[in-house]
């Protein structure tokens, strides 16, 4: 675009006669003012007299000037840089590669900073593993700007200085070492090579210290199984991009299973791309009890109780290994499925894989064995995942010893046992009794409040660090902002306590140079990239061949009452970030409930116990409570009747019920860790109904698609491969002169089309095959666009403000296609009443579909015509603009929006004590994106296609004198940038090389509600399900 060096002139004179203009430019006034004469000549100055009129003028001026000067305007103090830091230019974002691991979530990320202030998390595409942030990682930036953080070191509730703390602790540590009194060091999983070294040298200095790693949600059984089989205590790693046939028994690998980050790879195999007229895609069978995101994405989902899952796994092993094991029989239907699945597993050979989430060593052994038997290439034989190391046995031992008073001191970091232990009472008592208890913590949480010494720790965005999530794959964590408070990192303190004067940064650098990079020159590049891959790999080979014993053991387990499966929600994980309003307001992808956890139960069981969900007159969802009893522990939980929940099972998510170090608004839900007996996610429980009402904040109150097949178009792989596009993806038609004409044809358009072939024309493509419903885009959009949090009360009134929502629909018959058929078969009024009535209720094992919906940026937008003040109007580049300043708030646009994507500011959501979230907090406001205005009360808002970023891209290209690169725009939109599965692709369709242009040509493309004639700039790709053969099983 070198044409941009055009010359602009303000007048003709400027063009032709440059010298005169140049002269004028230097003079402020066209004519010289005669002030010099007056002041130079003293005589004339003295002679000049001030007459009465002038006097009055001066008097008037000076009086009013004095009055005006005395009215002080609001003073905003801003301190300019004394020395302008390099690379920080106001208005320009800087990106830093870093990585994070908090014991639960891990990711390699880029941090967007503005004027030295981190404001957003983005994916690090250089990373081979864990290169994409999930919803919680995206939200973690807000957790840094949490004014409830501990702002400095404390002893016994009083603020002290770091020097005092260090001195005290070193003194105590030394006296404990002298007496050889055992001290516990309880941390979350340490996956940092340098931290491990530091801890080791710390223990070397104080040999009386025992280090135990503790995962709040344990993966001990998987680790144990892996250790038994392969001799390496690590989690297996799967590479789903190689997978053609995936069988998952209870593994929520698109959710939180083992800290997984598999959705990107998984989605690659899920998009059917035609090669020589035939498309292939992976087939995914899910057997599970709770409805998980993974189950929702599966081609076939079979609800099974955990106990039956175990038996099923044992049988599967028996079948595949051809061993002769005497197992109890499966029921007939499940057995048929077993035969089908085992056949397909072997048939697909090394491109098939079995993953298993059953929390049982034997189950994990069998899973590994089956994968080895079928020679699965999906399960990596050279790489393992190192993000969980906790060993239940060691943790139990340590807790038992602590409770018995065998420890004289404890140091903790990254853990909150008082919250995450199933029965923390004795632990709490023991901890309270200890004289020497140190905790590294950011919040005054349940455990921290019981400790004597509180080391205020830094957020990962303020920290140095390094990680090895996968063997041989290293990541660097670098600070993106100076410590906001007087905080220190765990490792820094350990270094100083072990008498090492090096900083943690020095340690990392030398460790990397000596042991990882093996070079002094690669360090800067490693920092820049944030990741480094070495050739380090294992050769995992099983030493054992027969697992008949495990199969037998597994088949023995019998359950009596309800089988409870504890899980973690995408929004809350293990509850570390419970004080994060973005995550609290994040609707669960499956239940669409925000601000709560709950007991999920099947409809049949709920009816037999007397539990129900119902809607209030304003639509808000209510339930009664269930009393969940597990041995002597009782927990009162509200109930969500979950379609797809296996009968005889219930589910509860971790992460809620936090009570300390948390704002009162965020004290939501109940603590499911209390049911986490023996660190087992599967529990036997009894359920009783309590007739009290619970109020939910659910953003989607209607769960089915009502047979509206044109909203979510889908077909089967067979039809996709064999039939014409017109058959499975027809464009709706209207009648023109009694001839049916496709609605996208010019002749049926009543509007004059605007020529969009010049300049940029933005489109967003959403592939329903690739979207797993993970919700990372929802939080990314929240962060990018300063979307307000409105709180539980308002969400309950259907006033959530999310610009981007992920609609989740259940089929009401066994599949959506059956729903469509049922609707088409309606005959007569009474039939329609009964059929539509049935369609309101989801099936007991429904098909599920996710559909992200944001402003569709219609080229013929219904909202634009109805606004009386033209506050919303169309952009040259295809966006539907929203001028907040112009909006008077009639809400007509929202009413007339067929997609219902417009969000109204019902109240003032910032600086308002009624909405005491991050926008009512000076620190919380630091996360706001300065490029996006914070909307005031009474105006409409909605998705803008991140116009602030697309414009920045255009300007950058213009400054650099080049055209915008073909896919540069994709990272400008927060949602498409955050999307790790490639479900979303954003860009300029006038650039014929862009990804989005190519995608627009796809056969699967359709527009949402195309028949309305809105001509949206967002298009969807019809979902193709690979379930032809297994439809009936």
């Amino acid at each position: 675009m070198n044409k941009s060096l055009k010359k602009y002139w303000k007048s003709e004179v400027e063009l032709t006669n440059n010298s005169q203009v140049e002269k004028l430019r230097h003079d402020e006034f066209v004519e010289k003012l005669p002030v010099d004469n007056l002041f130079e000549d003293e005589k004339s100055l003295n002679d000049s007299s001030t007459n009465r009129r002038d006097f009055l003028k001066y008097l008037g001026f000076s009086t009013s000037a004095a009055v005006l000067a005395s009215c002080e305007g609001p003073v905003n103090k801003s301190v300019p840089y004394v020395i302008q830091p390099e690379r920080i230019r106001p208005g320009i974002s800087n990106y830093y590669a870093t990585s994070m691991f908090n014991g639960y979530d891990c990711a390699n990320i880029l941090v967007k900073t503005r004027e030295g202030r981190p404001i957003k998390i983005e994916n690090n595409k250089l990373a081979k593993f864990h290169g994409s942030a999930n919803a919680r990682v995206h939200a973690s930036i807000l957790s840094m700007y949490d004014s409830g953080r501990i702002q400095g070191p404390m002893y016994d509730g009083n603020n002290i200085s770091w020097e005092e703390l260090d001195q005290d602790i070193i003194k105590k540590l030394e006296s404990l070492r002298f007496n050889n009194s055992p001290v516990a060091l309880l941390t979350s999983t340490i996956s940092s090579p340098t931290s491990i070294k530091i801890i080791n040298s710390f223990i070397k200095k104080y040999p009386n210290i025992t280090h135990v790693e503790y995962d709040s949600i344990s993966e001990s059984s998987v680790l144990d199984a892996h250790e038994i089989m392969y001799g390496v205590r690590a989690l297996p790693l799967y590479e789903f991009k190689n997978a053609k046939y995936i069988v998952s028994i209870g593994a929520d690998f698109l959710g939180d299973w083992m800290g997984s980050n598999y959705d990107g790879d998984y989605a690659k195999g899920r998009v059917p791309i035609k090669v020589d007229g035939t498309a292939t895609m992976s087939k995914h069978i899910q057997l599970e009890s709770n409805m998980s995101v993974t189950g929702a994405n599966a081609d076939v989902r079979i609800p099974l109780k955990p106990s039956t899952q175990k038996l099923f796994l044992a049988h599967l092993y028996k079948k595949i290994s051809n061993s002769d094991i005497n197992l109890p029989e499966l029921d007939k239907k499940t057995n048929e499925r077993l035969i089908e699945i085992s056949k397909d597993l072997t048939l697909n050979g090394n491109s098939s894989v079995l993953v298993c989430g059953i929390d049982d060593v034997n189950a994990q052994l069998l899973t590994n064995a089956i994968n080895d038997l079928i020679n699965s290439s999906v399960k990596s034989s050279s790489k393992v995942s190192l993000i969980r190391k906790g060993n239940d046995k060691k943790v139990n031992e340590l807790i038992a010893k602590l409770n018995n008073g065998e420890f004289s001191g404890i140091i903790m970091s990254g853990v909150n046992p008082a919250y995450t232990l199933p029965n923390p009472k004795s632990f709490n008592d023991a901890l309270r009794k200890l004289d020497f208890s140190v905790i590294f913590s950011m919040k005054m949480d349940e455990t921290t409040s019981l400790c004597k010494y509180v080391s205020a720790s830094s957020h990962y965005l303020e920290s140095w660090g390094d990680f090895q999530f996968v063997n041989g794959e290293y990541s660097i964590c670098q600070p993106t902002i100076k410590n906001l408070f007087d905080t220190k990192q765990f490792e820094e303190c350990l270094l100083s306590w072990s008498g090492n004067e090096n900083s943690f940064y020095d340690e990392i650098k030398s460790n990397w140079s000596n042991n990882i990079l093996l070079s002094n020159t690669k360090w800067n590049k490693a920092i820049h990239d944030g990741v480094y891959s070495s050739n380090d790999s294992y050769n995992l080979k099983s030493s054992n061949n027969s697992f008949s014993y495990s199969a037998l053991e597994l088949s023995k387990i019998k359950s009596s009452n309800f089988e409870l499966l504890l899980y973690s929600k995408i929004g809350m994980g293990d509850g570390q970030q419970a004080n994060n309003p973005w995550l609290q307001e994040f609707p669960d992808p499956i239940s669409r409930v925000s601000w709560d956890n709950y007991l999920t139960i099947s409809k049949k069981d709920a009816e037999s116990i007397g539990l129900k969900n119902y809607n209030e007159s304003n639509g808000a969802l209510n339930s009664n409570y269930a009393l969940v009893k597990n041995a002597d522990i009782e927990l009162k939980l509200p109930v969500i009747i979950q379609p797809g929940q296996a009968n005889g099972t219930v589910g509860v998510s971790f992460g809620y019920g936090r009570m300390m170090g948390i704002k009162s608004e965020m004290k939501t839900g109940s603590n499911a860790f209390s049911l986490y007996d023996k660190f087992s996610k599967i529990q036997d429980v009894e359920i009783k109904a309590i007739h009290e009402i619970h109020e939910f904040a659910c953003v989607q109150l209607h769960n089915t698609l009502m047979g509206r097949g044109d909203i979510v178009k889908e077909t089967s792989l067979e039809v996709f491969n064999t039939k014409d596009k017109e058959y499975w993806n027809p464009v709706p038609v209207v009648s023109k002169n009694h001839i049916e004409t496709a609605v996208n044809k010019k002749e049926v358009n009543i509007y004059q089309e605007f020529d969009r072939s010049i300049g940029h024309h933005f489109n967003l493509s959403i592939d329903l095959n690739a979207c797993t419903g993970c919700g990372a885009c929802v939080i990314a959009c929240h962060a990018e666009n300063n979307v307000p949090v409105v709180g539980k009360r308002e969400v309950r009134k259907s006033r959530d403000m999310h610009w981007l929502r992920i609609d989740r629909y259940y089929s009401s018959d066994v599949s959506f296609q059956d729903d469509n058929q049922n609707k088409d078969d309606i005959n007569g009024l009474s039939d329609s009443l009964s059929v539509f009535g049935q369609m309101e209720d989801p099936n007991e094992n429904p098909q599920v579909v996710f559909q992200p919906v944001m402003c569709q940026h219609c080229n013929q937008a219904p909202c634009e015509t109805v606004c009386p003040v033209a506050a919303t109007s169309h952009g040259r580049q295809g966006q539907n603009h929203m001028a907040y300043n112009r909006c008077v708030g009639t809400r007509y646009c929202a009413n007339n929006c067929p997609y219902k994507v417009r969000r109204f500011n019902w109240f003032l959501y910032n600086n308002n004590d009624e909405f005491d979230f991050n926008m009512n907090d000076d620190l919380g406001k630091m996360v706001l994106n300065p490029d996006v205005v914070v909307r005031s009360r009474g105006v409409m808002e909605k998705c803008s296609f991140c116009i602030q970023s697309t414009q920045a891209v255009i300007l950058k290209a213009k400054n650099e004198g080049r055209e915008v690169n073909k896919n540069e725009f994709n990272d400008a939109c927060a949602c498409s940038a955050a999307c790790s599965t490639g479900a979303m692709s954003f860009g300029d369709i006038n650039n014929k090389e862009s990804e989005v242009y190519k995608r627009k040509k796809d056969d699967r493309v359709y527009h949402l509600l195309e028949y309305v004639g809105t001509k949206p700039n967002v298009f969807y790709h019809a979902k193709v399900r690979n379930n032809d053969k297994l439809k009936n099983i």
Partner: protein
Amino acid sequence: MGSHYEAPIRKPLVTGNKTYHQISVDVARPVEGSANKQWWIVFGIALALFVWGIGCIIYTISTGIGTWGLNKTVGWAWDITNFVWWVGIGHAGTLISAVLLLFRQKWRMGINRSAEAMTIFSVIQAGLFPIIHMGRPWLAYWIVPIPNQFGSLWVNFNSPLLWDVFAISTYLTVSLVFWWTGLLPDFAMIRDRAIKPFQKKIYSLVSFGWSGRAKDWQRFEEVSLVLAGLATPLVLSVHTIVSFDFATSVIPGWHTTIFPPYFVAGAIFSGFAMVNTLLIVMRKVCSLEDYITIQHIELMNIVIMITGSIVGCAYITELFIAWYSGVEYEQYAFLNRATGPYWWAYWAMMTCNVFSPQFMWIKRLRTSIVFSFVISIVVNIGMWFERFVIIVTSLHRDYLPSSWTMFSPTFVDIGIFLGTIGFFFVLFLLYARTFPVIAQAEVKTILKSSGDNYKKIRDNKNG
């Protein structure tokens, strides 16, 4: 105007052997006398409601629209329901005074003054809602096309809301002028009878120096005719344009070409019902039974019956078209209306608007004061539900089921509605005490032709 002959089979429009003087006395009586206890009680209640409504409006404006029950899916509910309801009620006045004037329906003379007053007062109520329903009502002037120099920008002439602004303001202006023109001779009559200097002063001001000369009367007649001609298209246009708010949208249940005539019929329907409600009480309280006779009420009941039937036809046509269109969203919208979660609102509407007016086929019922009064109230309840049904049940379940939700009003929604009712009655009660509630000058023109005594004399002479 009008001949002095009226067929003997026509019932007299003025009863009670009135003379010209008696008419003056009867009309001036409420103005000249003092208010009774009942007036004060009713006025007190209305004022209390009004004040409560003001409180709710202040609360809304100072806190936000969030104080109402609206949500992301249902962006309009009671606000626009009330707006359309009040505008609809405001239709009867102009219809009676303008259209019936052009059609030379003399019976309008007994009721047109109060009907027009009702029109103006209800349009005032209606006009409140488009302003207070805005998120930022202090910027309401932005929807007026005033030059950019004023600080606002040019408006969007595509928007039906803007058309509303013109429609309503034109209607209010023309109605007010028309009403006041008619009031001039009557104010002058009160002025001439007034004893207290203050009263005299006021009434001479508001009667604009009416002198009763032939020229005055001639101009009066001309202006009345011209204004009637102007106002007649307005009767049709106002509610047509209000219906465009919905008809031009893309929402199933709103996007309907039948809306303009359907809305106009509904408006006349509800307007006449409101006139009946008011006048049945007023004729009793102000002892105006001789001017607002059973025949007046009967005629209005017939209009109610006819327009009610038209509205009923429209409802059925909507259902038919929904089925006939073959559009599934359209079909579901109407199925949902009648059988969905708001079925009770739909059937309340059907019962009140379609079934109840059918009783008016029976002469005994339509000439019964009590029955007419009850039906007039029922009709307005039904018409309120009609707007609620159109607005809320269409919005709450539109295209994407994921956004489906429900609406429930808060105390503020209810408070503002009650407040406008209070405001309306405050205005009407004040009017009833200070204005000549019967167009006495016009009634006097038909006394000789339609007065019972004169008719009797004439009939006796002829017979």
